[in-house]
């Protein structure tokens, strides 16, 4: 028993469970960002830039 922070085995189990939960949340976070970034990395369809160009030209006269 050289664990001073969690003298009872249950406390250590809790700490381990907490680590596991944190790990899972991190894993979900990685996935979530990846899902979003996958769309960010898609090439932008031409009509987006075309619409913006048209609007800009219209205003310039």
């Amino acid at each position, binding site marked *: 028993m050289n664990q001073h922070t969690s003298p009872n085995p249950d406390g250590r189990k809790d700490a381990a469970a907490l680590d596991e*939960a944190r*790990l*899972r*949340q*991190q*894993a*979900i*976070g*990685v*996935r*979530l*960002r*990846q*899902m*979003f*970034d996958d*769309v*960010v*990395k*898609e090439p*932008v*369809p031409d*009509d*987006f*830039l075309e*619409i*913006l160009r048209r*609007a*800009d030209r219209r205003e*310039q006269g």
Partner: protein
Amino acid sequence: MTADLKERPPRTPAEDDAFKNELVTLIPHLRAFARTLCGDAAAADDLAQDAMMKAWDARASFQMGTNMKAWTFMILRNQFYSDKRRSWRQTQLDQEAAERTLVAVDDPEAPIALDELRQGLAMLPAEQREALILVGAGGFAYEEAADICGCAVGTVKSRVSRARRALQGILEAGDYDRDGSAAGDAMRSILADAERLSTVR
């Protein structure tokens, strides 16, 4: 961060160009955020285009140097909900369609965990999903997400934390609409993929 409609001095072409250049760099992010709101990719691009044009038309009210990403996300979100209000009868159908699409558009070659994450997200209440996406994927601070959603910072924090817990629960229980996959498989594959991704990077 309410849209400031006060008249500012006339804009110069150079200012418009600077605005346009920054707006263009935000298009991929607007598309990604719209995709999480709409599910359907074509409807999402329509929404992103509407938001882009609204931002362009309102450029006189935007102060260069402030957070244009948060500003455009707020415009997109407002647009989404005002479209929704206009067709509130459609809401339930839209939700069902979005859930179907979240499943249907999936690349069969895509890692299984992504598919399950999308389905898990689709099961969250809209305000939790949106808060989690903004903070967890969009890279916004709680304060910025609160501005975008028009609510208190504490509300965003609690929505994000509830969303995280709920999503983990859904993934661990295998409590999403999928056949032939044992409970807990989703979480296992997400953990495995995260490990692979973190060693690659």
